[in-house]
Structures are given as C-alpha cells and as structure tokens.
C-alpha cells in the first residue's frame, strides 16, 4: 500500500471538544487553526484536497473568535472549529469555481445560507475543497484542476464528487467539512476515505447558495471523523430557510437528539438487493454483514428486507439528474460572469465558451439530459424516470412500516486506483448503486466507517432512514461506530 497521509487523531480533539474548549477560554482558536494549517502546509501538495486555502481569512476569523470569548461573549456551538467547504458553496468575495474552468476566478456577491450559519456558529473556514466538476462524478478525477488523492493511499481516488471535503477531514486539514450529495457524493467518498458522511432529508438543509447540479436531488451535508461531530454540524446548518422554497418547515434535523440511547429494540432491515449483487465486492459485503451482526449484538432486531425498485435507481437517476443539470448549467453562457470565449455573434460565443469551459463528463451529462427532455423523448425517458421514483418511494414506505432503519454497503468497492474507471462512464456510474435510491426518495442516509477491505482500505456501512429520520439514523450510526473493527496501517 502506498503512502498514507492520515494522521493519528488520537490526540486531536473532536469538533465538539474544540468548540467547548474555545468557548470556555481553555483552547485558543488560533492555536487550533495553526495545527491544521501546519498539516495542510506539509501534506496538501500530495493530497490536493483544496482549490483554495484561505489562510489569511482563517487566521483573522480565529482571532475574532478568540477576542469574542475574551470579551465574555459566546461565538457559538462551532466556536473555533476549522471547517472546509466544497467549492460549490457560495462564499461572498471568495472564488467559488465548482472545479470548472467556466467559473474559474468567479467570486459570488453573496454567501450560501449554510456558510452564514457556520459563521454565526463561530466556525473558521480554512478553504474551498476540490470536487468533480459541477458535482458530476464519483472520483474527483473530473475536476478541471487535477484530482484529489485518497489520504489512505495517494495512488487511489478519494471518491466523489465531494472528494476534496472527504480527504480534508481524513488528512486532518479540517476538523469537519461540508460536501453535497446528489447520488451519493458525500457518502461514497466518506466510505472510501474512512470518515463519517451524512446526507439529510431532502429540504432539511437550505440549498440557497449551493450551485445547483440536480435540484430535486441535491443536499448539503457534513463530513466528520465521528458521528457526534457530524450531528453537531448538521444541526447547525439545517432547518428552515425562507430563501429556499423547498426548505422543510419544522425544528430542523435534530440529528443529535437520540445520541447515547443505544439500539435496543431498534428494527434494522438489511437490504437484500444490495447484499452481494450489483457489483458489490465480497469483502465489502462481509464488512456490512459484520455491521449487521454488531447491531444485533447491541440489541437491535436485524432482518433482511426487500426493496425491489432499488435496482432501477441507477437508470432513473441517470435520466433525472442529467436532465435537471442540463437546465441548471444553461446559465453558464459567458454573458454575465465566468469564462467568455469570443464569438462573432452571441450564438458563436455561447458555443465557444461552453465548449471550452466544460469538461467531458459535464458535456456528456448535459447532452444526456438535453436528450432526455427533448421533444418526443420526454415521456420515454424523463417522464418514465419520475414514475420509477414513485416506485422507489413506495417500496421504501413499505419497508419502513416494519423497520426503523435500513442497512447496506455505501460503495461497491474500496477506493480504486486513479484512472481505473475513466475509460467507460458507465463503470463509474455503477459506484452509486447503493446511494442513489435515497436521493430519489428524498430520504436521509449516512456512511459510517466499518473496518477495511482485503486491501486494507476503508469500507463504509450505510444507514438509511425514512424522511425526517435523522434522530434514529444517527442513533444507529453511533452504535456502529462504537462497534467498528479497528483499521490498521495508519501513520
């Protein structure tokens, strides 16, 4: 196995510990930040988790936090916690590129709601992380600025599309980070990088300021080294936002509300269709079986459950997501911001700009999506996919009548080698087979590290819950975390 850049976190405080330490005046936000900046300086060159490290801004913010505490104030529940942001979350005055040439250097004139909430909670943003261009990909190899490498083995991918955010946490460049998940783009990299990654219920976290990929599927969520930190961050960023019409009313995720309760009597359904078929590697399947056994040993009622429509999820997703994306990405036309390539007339300019500005995976998906929506094809492709979505929702509803949570692998394999899946897009798309159904249904799901594959690389177990099921999902995830086998090979 090649060189690992995963630090020994035994001595590194959790986000919760940092925040409480800073709020009590026992820890200095500047000191905490320095440790992270040191690690970034030493290892970012090999990992390439960031598109932009915001050292100066971070130092200024950390100083502000310390001053606030010194003056007797309370900076908030994430006081002094270094956080990294996936580079499609708008940060006012700071470049937000979506890892695309078409937005290279573009600085939004406003903050995303989640960014505003993090800042209000006292968090310190350390940088914008690398990603697959416009969130389209499962390996972060489709970035216009070069791939991110898996900190466990830098010859391997970190997963995608939030590979940079996952790697940043795994490599100790940030305590927590934010990613986005449309078809698995938080959970799959979390699994490949051995960290916790959670996608909330659709509508639980505001999408205002999230550069849209597929509007009916996109959600923002946290990466962290442990379940409690992920819950803490989710509770800070989640909850109703008047700027997002699809934002759920109510009390927010309440992700931490059931922590510490254990799983006695909780009904866990292991999804039969995702046990071994559909390209799931045997070592991954074994870890998930062990995860199920661990939950049973902790008092949960564990059985198999069939969710038949999940096998259609991939096809439905690859109609719906590209269709919405083709529309969401039309605005990148060289008129108002971003890249412009000259043309004799406006149409020539559109074509020249978009052809130069988008990478091949983005072009593929735009064309696939345009095709699926075009005259004569809507009913057969997009229209039909929306009906498959209904089937998946119904199957999940049936499953949740008998179970509280469901269990499956997160990703079919451990981290694959850079370049291994680039020649055939379909091979890459198969990475999302376990994660996609939750996006289509709008349900929460998260990945918890659970042991290693035969190659010593991390495996994640996926916990799925019904809509608004964040409390029970985190409750079960916490127990999985506690019973996870130790992973070897960390330096």
């Amino acid at each position: 196995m090649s060189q690992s850049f995963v630090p020994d976190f035994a001595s590194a405080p959790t986000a919760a510990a940092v925040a409480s330490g800073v709020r009590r005046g026992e820890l200095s936000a500047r000191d905490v930040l320095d440790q992270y900046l040191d690690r970034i300086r030493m290892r970012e060159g090999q990992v390439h988790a960031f598109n932009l490290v915001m050292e100066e801004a971070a130092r200024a913010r950390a100083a502000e936090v310390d001053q606030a505490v010194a003056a007797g104030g309370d900076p908030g529940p994430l006081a002094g916690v270094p956080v990294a942001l996936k580079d499609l979350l708008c940060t006012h005055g700071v470049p937000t590129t979506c890892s695309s040439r078409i937005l290279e250097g573009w600085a939004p004139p406003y903050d995303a709601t989640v960014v505003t909430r993090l800042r209000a909670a006292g968090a310190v943003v350390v940088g914008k992380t690398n990603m697959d261009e416009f969130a389209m990909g499962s390996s972060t190899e489709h970035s216009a600025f070069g791939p991110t490498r898996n900190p466990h083995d830098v010859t391997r991918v970190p997963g995608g599309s939030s590979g940079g955010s996952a790697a940043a946490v795994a490599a100790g460049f940030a305590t927590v980070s934010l990613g986005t998940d449309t078809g698995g783009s938080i959970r799959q990299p979390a699994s490949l990088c051995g960290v916790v990654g959670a996608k909330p219920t659709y509508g639980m976290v505001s999408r205002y300021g999230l550069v849209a990929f597929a509007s009916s599927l996109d959600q923002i969520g946290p990466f962290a080294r442990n379940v409690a930190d992920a819950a803490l961050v989710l509770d800070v960023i989640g909850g109703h936002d008047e700027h997002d019409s699809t934002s759920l009313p109510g009390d927010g995720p309440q992700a931490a509300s059931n922590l510490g309760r254990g799983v006695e009597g909780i009904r866990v359904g292991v999804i039969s269709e995702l046990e071994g078929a559909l390209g799931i590697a045997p070592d991954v399947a074994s870890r998930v079986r062990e995860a199920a056994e661990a939950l049973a040993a902790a008092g949960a009622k564990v059985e198999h459950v069939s969710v038949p429509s999940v096998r259609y999820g991939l096809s439905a997703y690859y109609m719906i997501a590209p269709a919405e994306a083709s529309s969401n990405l039309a605005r990148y036309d060289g008129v108002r911001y971003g890249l412009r390539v000259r043309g004799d007339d406006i149409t020539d300019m559109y074509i020249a700009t978009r052809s130069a500005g988008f990478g091949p995976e983005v072009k593929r998906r735009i064309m696939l999506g345009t095709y699926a929506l075009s005259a004569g094809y809507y009913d057969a492709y997009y229209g039909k996919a929306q009906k498959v979505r209904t089937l998946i929702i119904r199957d999940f509803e049936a499953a949740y009548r008998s179970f509280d949570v469901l269990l499956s692998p997160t990703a079919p394999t451990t981290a694959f080698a850079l370049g291994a899946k680039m020649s055939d897009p379909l091979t890459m798309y198969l990475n999302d087979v376990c994660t996609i159904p939750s996006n289509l249904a709008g349900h929460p799901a998260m990945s918890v590290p659970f042991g290693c594959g035969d190659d010593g690389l991390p495996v994640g177990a996926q916990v799925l819950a019904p809509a608004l099921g964040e409390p029970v999902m985190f409750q079960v995830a916490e127990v999985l975390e506690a019973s996870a086998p130790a992973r070897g090979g960390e330096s």
Partner: protein
Amino acid sequence: MSAIALAGWETVIGLEVHCELRTRTKLFCGCPNVFGEEPNTRVCPVCLGLPGSLPVLNRQAVDYAIRIGTALHCRVQPSIFHRKNYFYPDMPKDFQISQYDIPINAEGWLVLPSGKRIGIVRAHIEEDTGKTTHIGGGGRIHQAGYSLVDYNRAGVPLVEIVSAPDLRGAEEAREYVEELRAILVATGASDGKMEEGSLRVDCNVSVRVAGSAEFGTRCEIKNMNSLRSLGRAIAYEAARQVELVEAGEAVVQETRHWDEADGRTHSMRSKEEAFDYRYFPEPDLVTLAPDEAWVTGAREHLPVLPAERRARVAEAACVPVSTEAVATVVRLDLDGLVAAAVAAKADPGLALRRLANEVAGELDGRSGGDIEASAFVRLVHMEQGGELTPAQARTVLKTLVAQGGDPAVIAAGLGFEALATGALAAVVDQVIAANPREWERYTGGDDKLAGFFIGKVKAATGGNADLRAANDLLRQRRSG
C-alpha cells in the same frame, strides 16, 4: 392590398397579451418592481440567476393572478411551474420559469362591447426577461454591431393571457385589447400603460375563405408596440397570406417580426432550428393551490367590470347593450352620470345621447371625471322639460364640460329661454295665417311643406323655438 381584394376572406386572430403586475417587488425575489431606473441597479442573485440562487414566489403576484382569472371567468385551479428552456441573453438563467400544461387560470371568456364573447384559453404566471438594446445598425437587431443588456426588468411578474382564435379582423382584435386592458386596470393588477411596456401583445394570424370551418396555417406576429401597430400589422399580414394562398403557395407556420418603420412583417428564421423548449416541472418551486376562501374573496372584491357597467347603462337607457353609445360612455367613465340621471328621474336615453355625442366630442380623450353630476342632470331636466331647445342644450353642455358651472346660469348668460308653449302656438298660428296657399297644400297632404312652415317659425322666433314642439303643433292644427 385593398379591402375589396380581401373580400371573401376571413382573418382569424388569437392574441397573447403579457400583462406586468403592479406588485412592489419581483416575482421570485425582493427587488423593487419599478420602471425607468438606472440599468442593473434593481438586481440580486435570484433575478440575475447567479449560481446557487433560488426563486421564492410573491404572494401579491398570485393574488393579482387570481383576480385576473376571476375577472375573466376562468377556473382557478391548483397549478405548478415549469421551466421553458432556451438560450437568449435577456434571460439570466437561459430558462424562463413559467407555467405549461397546468396553469393557474383556465377556460374563461370575456364579452366585447359589440356583445361578442371571446374565449380565454388560459391566463398563467411567468417571469419577465431583461431588456436588450442593439447598438449600431439603427437599433434594429439585424444590422446591430453589438448589444447591451439590462436586467432590471428580469423577474418582474407577468400574467400571460391567451385568447382562443375567436377574433375576426383587425378592428375586433383592437376592441379585444381595449376591453382586456380595461378589465386588467379595473382589477388593480395592472396600470395598463402600453407605452411603458406594462401591456404587450403578440398575435397569431391566419386567413381562410369566408364561411369555411377549417383554420388556415397561422403565423405569430411579434413587436407591435401600440394598438395602431397591432391593427396595421394584422392588416398587412392578412393581405400577405391571402396573396400567397391565391397564388397557390402555402403559408409557412413561423414567427414574424413587425417592422413599424417599413410597415411589413419579416420572417424571423434564425440559424437555430425551431425552438424545442424541453419543458419540465420547476424543481425549485412547490405546488400552488390557492384555497377556496382566497379565490372567493378575490371574486367578491372585484369592482364592477366594464361589461357589467355597460349592461347597467343599457338597461337604464333601454337600449341594446351592443349600442356604440353605451361602449363610449363606459370607456370614458361617464356611466356614473347616466346613473345619476336615472336616480333624479331625468331621461336616461337623452342623457346617454348627450354623453356619447356632445360630451365625448368635447372631452376629446380627456377624462370625464370633472363633470358635476347634479349640474349635468339639471341640464337634462331642462331640455327634457322644454326649457331649452336641443340646440340650446348642446351649447350649454359644451360650456358645462369645458368650464363647469350651473346650467341655468349659463343658459341665462347666453340669452336662452325656450319659448313657452302658449307663445309658440301663437307664432305657429300667425305663420299659418300668413301663408294660406302653402297651408292649403300642406293640409291637402303635401308633407314636404312642413319644412317651409318650420323655417318661418324659426325666423319669427329668432331661433328660440323648440322646433319639434312646433312640428307637433303644425300637425295638430292640420288634423284638428
């Protein structure tokens, strides 16, 4: 092509009217909805379509849309928004948020002053685009060197009202736009200012042999900025199509651009193929389902609309509702004066005639709001009771409209008093006595001589006689 050449042909028209709503802010964001500001000073991430922005629907815009729907007798129903995808620089997102197969208002109608009912297919909500200015080439799009874009108008709320192809001819099309505009202004949803672009009209025109049941191929005509342009464009386009069909050629279904300067429509074939809008439901917005209370409330709070006002005037004056005088009186907001006449037991028919003819003529486009109701009613009474002759009444009325005042005072000032009936009878008898030979012919059946005698009476009274009363007296004398 002359009107004679178009005889035998029928011009079929459907109109799409875009109405800007009088909300304080835009449809999906809080930017002020104002006209005429410095470019790009009324924009935000949402109406600029910046990456990451999201739309949130304006409640007042929905309320106006419901008012319009109820005023047009539409079914107000739960609806969703769709994206209409195409590339054009005045559209920040390169798609427009609109409504497609499930609009908020469907299947309504309105009644023209002529009495004809025109179907309204739908009236849906959508966002407006920004404005492009073409530089070089005389401001026309084809010869322009480059263009400039201002997004202040992007995101302003619109209701698009689509009529059924029930209109026949340019005149009827104009009548429809005027009636629709009056309705929209009455609901409070629009300020009706076509000259500021708050009301815009596109039309679909086709021709067919008169009496035929099948529709011809239609063309969409855009870029008419006034009612006059609309009329001219329809007339040109109808003639163009008739000429093609008579020459054995087919009318190509296309969008054409009206050129005000050269008075023609031009084909707008651009280098892209026909637009494929790839409509799909807008994922960033949720279902709009106004409850019964909202719709009923909107309907109940509608003011009296033009058609109802015409009906009331017609009923009061005992004339058919399609009488042109009725339409004129309502259009000039003079119907209150008819109501005042009725209330004061003045002759409503006479009131109607005077308003539609003399007052309308005198106002010449100005508002009739200044005319004092009791003064007008007094004048009608004076004419009705014979205190003034019709000619005198008309003269007093002109002064009343121009300057206001008391009609009795005005009449006295002009030296008008109609001859009392007794004095008039004496004059008639004198004239008869002075012209025995003509009188013999008249009583013998030569009715034309009535005019001779009336002329004599007029001369004898210096024009102060009520000539109708004089005519009555002559006939009485003849038969009595």
